[in-house]
């Protein structure tokens, strides 16, 4: 007889603790690991009814015995890195190999004097890390802290408008014959009145790999950031990530992510708009097939008056793929004149795919403009017919409609080469 989910979960937790028991800590980060162990004991692994995982099936992840990957079996060479560097970022890329910052493989020459890039343990953020762990409510972010042994801290000085985009490249190398997991951590502090364009790329990602990242972005007063993220390849891997963004007065953050799926992909984004007039824009697109899963869990906390948050998520589902979007705007008392819009659209290209949606508003102020909506639909047959009556084949018409649905998000990816890549990879998947 097969094990119950509860038994599987318990076995996975025991295994995790056993791995932690023989974990070779980075001494400078050991306090963070220890705090995470404490927090993990409080949180426990989620069961079926956990609010954050209502739509996420963790069974497959929990049946795999992972090994923590301390580093690559064979260090990647420059050529392996450079092929993943976007045009325009040739002298402004930061490389993390299996979760750890690799100073030698990185190149930030064009940003000299404008930003500081340091290994996490040598950066200024240990106290903040400790604080973050104690408040952590996401079990996988907690596991990231439990095995935190490297990462990168990026500091963009006050009053610096970067003209060159910064690329953050995550390389996962894997170990032959083993299922490995990594704990990448990226912290980006954007100074007062500064502006930056960041593009994140995940590469490598062998099958059965569990990529479990945390990214923290601190936006000081008047800071602005445009963040692009393309997740491609690694269809057989687990990609989990949490992004925590803190936004001070008049800061602006626009993040657009495009994902071509994975065995299970889960993204948790927690944004605190703590200063008046902060503006958040998030866009996400996932193109899924087979039994791939992509789950988004988003929380925007409006803690100051006059802030805005705009969210649009689109999923295209084929085969027996599964997508979910659980998104909430929480308006704290006193956060008057909040503007919040959430929209989720799912395009179902098969009868066996599944999409779950939960857009929520929690409003504790009376003078706000908040709206949300969600749709699930198929390709519109009237549109298909209209195109066929102009000479397009049925397949051409459907492909054009589907890519049109995706393009509304892809076209918003701030960094053009990343948009082109998303266009190429995601649209190829639709062919």
């Amino acid at each position: 007889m097969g094990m119950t989910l509860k038994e599987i979960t318990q076995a996975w937790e025991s295994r995790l603790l056993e791995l932690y028991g023989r974990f070779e800590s980075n001494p400078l980060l050991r306090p963070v690991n220890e705090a995470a162990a404490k927090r993990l004991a409080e949180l426990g692994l989620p069961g079926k009814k956990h609010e954050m995982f209502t739509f996420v099936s963790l069974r497959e992840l929990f049946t795999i015995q992972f090994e923590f990957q301390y580093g690559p079996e064979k260090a990647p060479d420059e050529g392996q890195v450079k092929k993943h560097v976007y045009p325009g970022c040739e002298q402004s890329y930061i490389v993390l190999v299996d979760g750890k910052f690799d100073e030698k493989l990185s190149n930030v020459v064009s940003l000299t004097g404008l930003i500081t890039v340091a290994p996490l343990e040598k950066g200024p953020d240990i106290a903040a890390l400790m604080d973050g762990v104690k408040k952590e409510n996401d079990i996988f972010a907690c596991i990231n802290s439990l095995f935190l042994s490297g990462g990168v801290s990026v500091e963009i000085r006050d009053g610096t408008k970067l003209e060159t985009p910064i690329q953050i490249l995550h390389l996962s190398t894997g170990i032959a014959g083993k299922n490995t997991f990594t704990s990448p951590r990226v912290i980006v502090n954007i100074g007062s009145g500064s502006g930056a364009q960041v593009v994140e790329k995940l590469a490598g990602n062998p099958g059965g790999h569990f990529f479990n990242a945390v990214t923290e972005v601190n936006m000081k007063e008047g800071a602005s950031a445009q963040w692009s993220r393309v997740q491609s390849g690694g269809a057989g891997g687990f990609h989990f990530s949490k992004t925590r963004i803190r936004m001070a007065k008049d800061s602006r953050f626009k993040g657009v992510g495009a994902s071509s799926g994975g065995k299970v992909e889960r993204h948790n984004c927690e944004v605190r708009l703590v200063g008046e007039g902060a503006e958040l824009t998030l866009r996400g697109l996932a193109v899924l097939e087979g039994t791939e899963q992509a789950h988004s869990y988003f929380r925007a906390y409006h803690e100051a008056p006059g802030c805005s948050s705009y969210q649009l998520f689109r999923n295209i589902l084929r085969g027996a793929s599964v997508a979910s979007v659980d998104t909430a705007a929480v308006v704290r008392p006193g956060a008057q004149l909040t503007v919040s819009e959430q929209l989720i659209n799912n395009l179902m290209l098969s009868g066996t795919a599944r999409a779950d949606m939960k857009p929520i508003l929690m409003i504790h102020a009376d003078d706000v403009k908040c709206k949300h909506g969600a749709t699930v639909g198929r390709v519109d047959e009237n549109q298909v017919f209209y195109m066929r009556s102009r000479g397009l084949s049925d397949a051409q018409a459907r492909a054009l409609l589907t890519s049109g649905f995706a393009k509304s998000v892809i076209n918003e990816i701030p960094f053009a080469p990343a948009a082109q890549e998303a266009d190429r990879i995601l649209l190829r998947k639709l062919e």
Partner: protein
Amino acid sequence: MLEIKNLVAGLDGMEILKGISLTVNKGEIHSIMGPNGHGKSTLSKILIGHPDYKVISGSVAYNGRNLLEMPPEERALEGIFLAYQYPVEIPGVNNAEFMRMAYNAKLKREGKELVDALDFEEILNAKMSLLGIESKFRERSVNEGFSGGEKKKNEILQMAILEPRLAVLDEIDSGLDIDALKIVAEGVNKLADGNNALLAITHYPRLLQYIKPRSVHVMIHGKIVRSGGHDLARELEETGYDRYIH
């Protein structure tokens, strides 16, 4: 070119066309007139092959082929064009790109080399200036956010690009102001070069002041009750359709 014989057809099990016969030859312009709800649009949908509309009996031959056996894209590639009464909005699909794909589908059928976006832009610009159509039509999504008149102009633009052999215009004049109507009629007249044929379906005789049909047919209760020359349109303007409805 087009030969319709005793066509009986309908929608949702309801018989709408009750025995239509009509022959349209190369170089001819025909007009089908009649009040709303009497089968004019059903005929246009049957001609383009809309799957919701079913043929019960009768035949339609197009250049000697059985039209009813051809899928809609095949009809389009063989030169049939329907200018829709209610053109469909397609968000996310660029209008120029859509027209280029349709144009390339036609070129492919003719065994010609396909055009890239740059070459097509020239072709499109030429047609747009010919029809006096604003450049915003190029950038926008197909019909999305277009006014009623703009949608009709966009249909005519597509027609001008695709240069069909048989154009079926379904109420192309409805919702158009007089200036837009002139643009549309001009586009239609430029197309009519003796090699093509046109079937203009309309409720109002107004359009026929600009497009001069060789034959006018009155459709009532799914049947052609009277056919005549251009003067029939003028007569209908004075008398209306009441005398034909029993």
